[in-house]
């Protein structure tokens, strides 16, 4: 656009800041990934490349502990993710397609409340609640707490997707004598699928990642991967923890990329031509 004149958009040095930003964000992660392949008992000196710490997570002394923790983490993330996605899908249709009513913004606030309350406050409140009603802390209390904070994470991409779909699709279905349920399952849901899927994936990762709330409501004996790692790290960073961290890092990146790609593909088959 600018031929001979200077480009007013360009600020010299901003590019270096961007590179610095990415450098700061990624260096610690890359360093830990590299050191997880370190064939040495000491985490400070480099002793050559090896997979021994990965072997250690699966077959070493702490393998049983990690396996139970991984199973708890994954099963809770799956169930919390699915439940939150169902609730969020229903809520998104109610908010965006339902009749207007007083207090709609209040309802939006309530759905997003878990994002506004500081995590540690949610953790304390949930612990107090479970203890006051005499609910035994353990697997179930973790699951319930996770469903709550997964709802807004699932809601946002689902609602964004639904807002981009024209009403005429489901109206056409109704005009062709479909029941409301059929109009949802056969017409609206397939159109919403990318949003629903990426909402589920985000909820799944958020549940898998949570430490603070889990740490408060888990009770004795039940561990998820983050609480197990925290307990271990408190006694010093060990090389097997770095291998475990690297694996979890890869899982998170895999699911986020998947969610990103699904959204991208969904955009291409988007409906609202503006």
């Amino acid at each position: 656009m600018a031929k001979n004149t200077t480009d007013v958009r360009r600020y010299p040095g901003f590019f270096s800041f961007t590179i610095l930003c990415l450098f700061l964000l990624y260096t610690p992660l890359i360093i830990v990934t590299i050191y997880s392949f370190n064939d040495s008992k000491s985490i400070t000196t480099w002793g050559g490349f090896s997979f021994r710490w990965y072997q250690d997570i699966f077959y070493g002394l702490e393998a049983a502990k990690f396996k139970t923790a991984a199973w708890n983490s994954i099963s809770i993330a799956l169930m919390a993710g699915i439940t939150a996605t169902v609730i969020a899908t229903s809520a998104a249709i109610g908010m965006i397609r339902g009749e207007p009513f007083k207090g709609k913004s209040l309802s939006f606030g309530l759905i997003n409340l878990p994002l506004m309350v500081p995590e540690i406050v949610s953790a304390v409140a949930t612990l107090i609640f479970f203890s006051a009603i005499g609910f035994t802390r353990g697997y179930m209390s973790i699951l319930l707490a996770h469903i709550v904070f997964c709802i807004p994470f699932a809601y946002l991409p689902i609602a964004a997707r639904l807002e981009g779909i024209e009403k005429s699709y489901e109206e056409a279905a109704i005009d062709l004598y479909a029941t409301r349920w059929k109009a949802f399952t056969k017409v609206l849901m397939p159109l919403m699928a990318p949003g629903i899927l990426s909402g589920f994936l985000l909820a799944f990762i958020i549940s898998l990642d949570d430490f603070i709330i889990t740490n408060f409501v888990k009770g004795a004996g039940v561990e998820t991967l983050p609480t197990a790692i925290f307990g271990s790290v408190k006694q010093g960073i060990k090389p097997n923890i770095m291998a475990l961290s690297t694996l979890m890092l890869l899982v998170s990146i895999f699911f986020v990329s998947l969610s990103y790609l699904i959204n991208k593909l969904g955009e291409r088959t988007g409906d609202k031509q503006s």
Partner: protein
Amino acid sequence: MSAPIAPLNAKKNPNAGVFDGIGLWLLSPSWIVIGVFLLLPVFMMLIFSFLTKEFRGGVIWEPTLAAYDQFLFDRGLFGDEPPTIEWTYITIFARSIWQAALATLFCLIIGFPTAYYIATRSARSRSVWLFLITIPYWVNLLIRTVSMKFLIRDTGPLNQFLMSTGVIDSPIHIVNTNFAVQLGLFYSYLPFMVLPIYAAVERYNFALSEAAWDLYADRWTTLRKILIPVVKPGIIAGCILVFVPSLGAFLAPDLLGGAKTFMIGSLIEEQFKGNAGNWPFGAAASMILLSMVLIVLMFYARQQTRAQAGAR
């Protein structure tokens, strides 16, 4: 608008949408789950903050102001001395605000140019840059904090690198300092600063900058006088998104800091761990933290409405 001319199965109101009338039913599961498992617990926490502590954790159902009193006043070991101001907890709160504010400032210094740079790329490369910025956010916060600790330890790769290149002779102690905590908070929430500023700059009309340019303003005057005032709502949103979680952060101060860098998050956590805890006091500290966050959010909401009114 898109109402069919004459629907065959003539509904009562041809303008009504398919899901009209059941909206509240569809919303109710989310209201019930969040209401019962978050809103109600917050109210119970408020009640607990006015109860008497039991020595092995938990509470006795006797109303008292002891928790808030303990927060503000020192009445001696047996509680019979004339009250003096208790600075311990006020200091912890003031330190938390200070640390969170510094972390927010660092995030702004790095985040603003980054967001601006990304927003002025082509649409195609923009989404790639944004994706690169968001990935670390989705990586487990615990793992990121542990990675940071590993990197900056006395015998960690950073010190080894600096010593091998001869920049320093002996390792710099970073872990357990205030700076380590600020660095950890900065690292935890940096993406939160970039995203809202990016969104604001993307909507910015560059004709304004060109007009300033034509009127002989230089680059930096244009930035200061035109761009920053216009994208201010995005900058404020970014600052709040970093400041609020930093204020109540637990992992960064706990793993990267020491006893001298104690923050609100650790203070609260301590009240609920083991037998030494004091539940009403922990609930009171949580209530104070929550009130502070709500004040910041209300300020933000007012700011945004004013910005919208100004845009009209």
